[in-house]
Every structure is written in C-alpha cells, then in structure tokens.
C-alpha cells in the first residue's frame, strides 16, 4: 500500500519536475530573446553611415537635442527600429496564431494570401485613391479579412483539408500579387523600391506617422490575442475536445482570426508584406522553447528579432542595400522547402 503510494508520489514529483524544467527553459529562452532584441535594437540605433556612441543615442532617445545625431538617430533610425520591432511582433503573433489554430506551419497568413491581399489594398489606396495614413490601414484590414474569408470558403468542402487550403491560398496570393503589380503600373512612374515594398516588404522611409497606427493596433489587438492564448492552445486538440474543455469554439476562432488578420494587415500597411516573416517566426520559436506552452510571445520576440537582424544585414552586410523583405525571403524560402520535404518524408496528409 505504502509502496504504491510512494510510486505515485514519485511519479507526480517526476511530472512536476519535468514541467518545471520545461517552464524554466521557456522562460530562459524568452528572456534571452528579449535581451537579444534589445541589443540589436540598440545596435541599429548606433550603426549606420556614421557611428554614434551609446551616450549620444541615449541622449537623443531621452529627448535632448544632439547636433547631428538628433536628426539621424531621432528621425531616421529610431522610427525605423521601432517600426521593425512592432511589425515583427505583429507578424510573429499573427503567423503563430494561424499556424497553431490550423495546426499547419504552412497555413500562415503570408503563404495563404492574406498579407498579399492587405498589401494589394494598401497599394491601391495609396496609388489609385491617393490616400495616406490611417485610411490605408482600414483598406488593408478590410482586404485582409475579406481574403481570409474567401480562402476559407474556397477551400471548405465539408471540412477544410490542409493542403487544399494552402494551395488555394497560394493561388489567391498569386492573383493578388498580380493585382499589386497592376496597381503599381498605374503610378506615374514605376519605382523599383516602391514595388519591392508592396511585394516583399521594406522599412525604407519609416516615419513616426507610419509607426502610430501599427502601434495602436498592437496595443488593442495584442492583448486580445494573448488573453486567448490558452483557448488557442486548446483548439489545437480539435473542436470537440476544446468545447468539452469549456472553450466557446466558434466565438474564439472568429476573435482569433480577426485579431491576427488585424495585426498582419496594419503591419502590412506600414511595411508591406515582409516575406515569410509570419511563416518563419512561429516554427523558430517552437524550436527554441520546445512544443509546450503558448507559442505567441516567443513568436512575437522571434519576429521582432528577425526583422531587426534582417534589416541590419540588408542595409550593411553587402554593397547594396537590400529591403528587409528580400533578406527574409532568401532566409525563409529554403526553410519552406525544408518543411515540405520533412512533411513529405514523415508521410503527411498530402
């Protein structure tokens, strides 16, 4: 009797130890990621055509007027770095939400056409309608939600099959990219940099005015997503299990989709659809923290880190200045192929 009890207690203790170890790893990884984000953020402010020592940068950030550094750091580098972090967080959160909910890393908003839709709408609002500022974001989010619904309806055939959804989303994305090119061709003149922004994403020309809508969206929608992260994790186990565990499945799902698409669309309106960012952040975060717990916060941190690093690399590592989306595209595309190879090997449901 006591023997059985002892074994049970030992088992419980072992489980608790395992959980504690996993939590510890998760926390460590998140703290490390946050530190890295902060470090790269600081580097971004200091490094450039002219180097400014940390003291100058700190004084500028605190609002002092430093000759030279005041403009370069305060007006050029700071908004760019802030936008990089916010956009990275938005794309990371949105991507991880979709990937977790649909249980498929390929089902991220930038692969299934949602970012392309937001981008086409933003380009349309700017180039054709001559809008600027918040109305552009409204167009982007309306298009993002519309495309999400469209892809869902197109791939719904008594249940949504994974691969079908992904392929249909890719098809929709191809069309929307064509629309973007068409819209850009209506601009007074073809600007390669502008085209790259709306097709692969770029941080060039970041301003505080551009940062503000994304920041507001993140402040509102971010907490909504995070507050549902437990429900999101439960949704992974299927609708019935989730319902049995007390999650209001349909309501939660709609809320999650709206919040995720909102984040993606607002970020896209500011930076363009940074290639493969939403797709990359979640899987990298999961790889780092292990498969336990909600992937949202780690994915957000990884997203921010990726954008900062990719932008730094794109600007200074080569002779040419690459827009951030080109760098993430070159990084992300092989990973996409790798995922497909792995899924095929393990006999996925394709």
């Amino acid at each position, binding site marked *: 009797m006591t023997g059985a009890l002892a074994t049970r207690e030992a088992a419980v203790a072992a489980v608790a130890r395992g959980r504690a170890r996993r939590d510890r790893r998760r926390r460590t990884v998140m703290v490390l990621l946050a530190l890295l984000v902060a470090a790269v953020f600081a580097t971004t402010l200091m490094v450039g055509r002219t180097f400014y020592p940390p003291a100058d940068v700190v004084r500028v950030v605190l609002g002092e007027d430093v000759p030279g550094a005041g403009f370069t750091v305060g007006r050029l580098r700071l908004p760019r770095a802030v936008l990089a972090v916010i956009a990275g967080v938005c794309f990371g959160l949105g991507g991880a939400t979709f990937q977790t909910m649909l249980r498929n890393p*390929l089902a991220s908003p930038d692969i299934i056409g949602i970012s392309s839709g937001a981008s086409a709408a933003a380009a349309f609002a700017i180039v054709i309608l001559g809008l600027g500022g918040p109305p552009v974001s409204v167009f982007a989010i309306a298009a993002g939600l519309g495309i999400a619904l469209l892809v869902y309806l*197109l*791939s719904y*055939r008594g249940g949504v099959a994974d*691969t*079908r959804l*992904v*392929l*249909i989303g*890719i*098809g*929709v994305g*191809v*069309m929307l*990219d*064509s*629309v973007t*090119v*068409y819209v850009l*061709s*209506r601009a007074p003149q*073809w600007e*390669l940099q502008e*085209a*790259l922004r709306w097709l*692969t994403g770029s941080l060039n020309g970041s301003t505080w005015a551009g940062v503000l809508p994304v920041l507001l969206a993140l402040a509102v929608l971010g907490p909504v997503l995070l507050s549902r992260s437990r429900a999101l994790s439960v949704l992974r186990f299927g609708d019935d299990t989730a319902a049995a565990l007390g999650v209001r499945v349909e309501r939660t799902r709609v809320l999650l989709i709206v919040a995720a698409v909102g984040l993606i669309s607002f970020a896209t309106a500011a930076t363009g659809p940074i*290639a493969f960012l939403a797709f990359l952040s979640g899987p990298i975060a999961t790889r780092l923290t292990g498969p336990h717990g909600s992937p949202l916060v780690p994915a957000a941190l990884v997203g921010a880190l990726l954008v900062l690093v990719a932008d730094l690399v794109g600007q200074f590592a*080569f*002779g*040419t200045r*690459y827009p951030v989306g*080109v*760098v993430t*595209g*070159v990084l*992300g*595309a*092989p990973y*996409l*192929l790798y995922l*497909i*190879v792995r*899924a*095929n*090997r*393990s*006999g*996925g449901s*394709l």
Partner: protein
Amino acid sequence: MTAEVTGTAATAPPPGAAAVRRPARVRLLWLLALAAALAACCAASLAVGSRDVPLDQLAAALGGSSDNLDQAAVATRVPRTVLALVVGAALGLAGAVMQGVTRNPLADPGVLGVNMGASLAVVTGIAWFGLWTADGFIWAAILGAGLTSVFVYAVGSLGRGGATPLKLALAGVATSAAFTSFITAVVLPRGDIADGVRSWQIGGVGGARFDTIEHALPFLAAGAVVCLLAARPLNSLALGDELAAGLGERVALTRGLAWLGSVLLCGASTAVAGPIGFVGLVVPHLCRLLVGVDHRWLLPYSALAGAALLTVSDVLGRIIARPEELDVGIITALVGAPFFIAIVRRRKTRAL
C-alpha cells in the same frame, strides 16, 4: 471563365470515359475554329495598343507599306506578336506534355517552378558568370529548367504515395517562391540590370526583337519535335506505368523524351520572354474538352491554343493598362490562378 471551369469539373470522366475520343469531324472542326481564333488574336495584337489601328490600315501595313503612323505602329508590333505566338505555343505544348508525363492535372511550367528555375539560372549567369549572349541565355535557361524540374519532382515524390498532384504542386510553388526571392537578391545589386528584376520575375513579350527570337527558334523547334515524338507513347503512359510496360512501351524512354522536350521548350521560352506561368496549366485542360485525351491530337491543339491564349493575354495587358502596358505574365496569372484554384478545389484531384 466560370463557364470553362464548371465545364472542366463536369468532364471528370464518367465511367467508360466517353471523352476519350471525339469523332475526327469534330476535331477538324475545332481545329478550324482554333485557327480562325488564332488569326483573330494576331490581328488584334497588331491593331490594339496605345494607338489603335483601323483594319484597312492594318491590311495596308501587312501589305508592306509604312507610310503613316498607324502602319509604323503595326510594324513595331510584329515582333511581339510573333514572340507571343511562339512562346504561347511552347508553353501550351510543354504544359500538356508535363501533365501527361506526371499524370498530374496541376502540372504547368509555371506552377512546377521550372520557368522560375530557368529565369534564376539566366540571372545568375548574367550577374556572376558574365553571361551576355543570346545563346548563353538559352543554354543557361535550359540547364536551370532541367535541374529545377528534377529537384521539384524529387521533393514532390518523397514519402508516401509518391508524386501526388497536390504534393508536386506544393513543391513547385514553394520552389518558385524561393527562386523569386533569390532572383531579387541576385539582380538588385546590379544597377545595370535592376529593371531586369521585373522582367526576370514576370515574363513579358514587350521587349521582343527578331534576333533573339531567331536564336530561340531552333531550340523551340527541337523541343516541339521531341514532344510530338512522345505523343503516342504518352497515351499508353496514361494507363499507368505497369500497363504501359505491359503494352510494350519503353516507359523510361518515353519519360526521358517528354522531359527533354518540355525542358527545351520551357528553357528557351523563358530565356526570350521571362517566366510566364499558367498558360501550360489552362490550355491542356481546355483542349482536352475539345479533342479528348489522345495526345496525338491534344499536343498540337495545346500548342495552337497556347499561342492564342498568350497573344490575347498580351492584347488584354495593353488594353487594361492604357496608355502603359502590363506584362503578359501578370495577365496569365490573373486568368490562370482562378483556374488553378478550381482544379485544386475539386474534391479528389484525380490523377490523369
């Protein structure tokens, strides 16, 4: 478009496959119709643009006179029309052969990433290996197309069930996306070809010149001949490899021929016009409705219809973006992607 799509869905072959063979009379009739459509497309391509040319002027210009602006405009549109015809035919034919040899309704030089691979090879050659001759472009493109097709097929056929249509398509579009990123990265630092980022990612026929077309023609002709040689064995292959072998067909040889032919076609057409997708996807499906699944008829029909589709797409690109023009690759993507979605949507993407 919708009518065509629902039509395709309806012909998912009934038991006994009534659509396998159409009477010769019907096929000839469609051939005439197709030829007429092609002629109309050519006329439109010569007449429509930022300056619309009336028919009498068009006739005069074709008669060789170049007295006024209208007739001069026609003369400048001749090369692009020829290029659209040639490349369209090549892509239509290549698509039909690819669909036949992989028995995959989603196969297409664009969807499977082959054209983007050809494009990446050319761009890499220009940027890193000092490639600058028309023949060099073509050889590089053919090499790129060949390697890419092998790679995509290898990725798509890993794992259970071999190269199922959806797996192959996913491998293809992923490869295509990857190559698009690489092309941007390779071309962007080169100021002298930076505008080429666009033309090597989205195909177009606007910059057509007769001398580049001349360079590509032998390759295209060779590819077409090889493909047509494979037409009859492809019919047996449609029954499955085992059955085809049982019927005395040399399966590996047929596959090799079809592969070689389509790689030549895709490579050469990408080298002269850039990567153009979806023509090879749409055209064979439509032609199958017209003439059935016999490749001896399907292949020539696909070539004709591909030429017509690309020419009409080019005209469309000039109309909707007046006074500028849209690259034809944009138009084919706009038209072809819904078609792609419709095929994916069918409950069971049956093997051909």
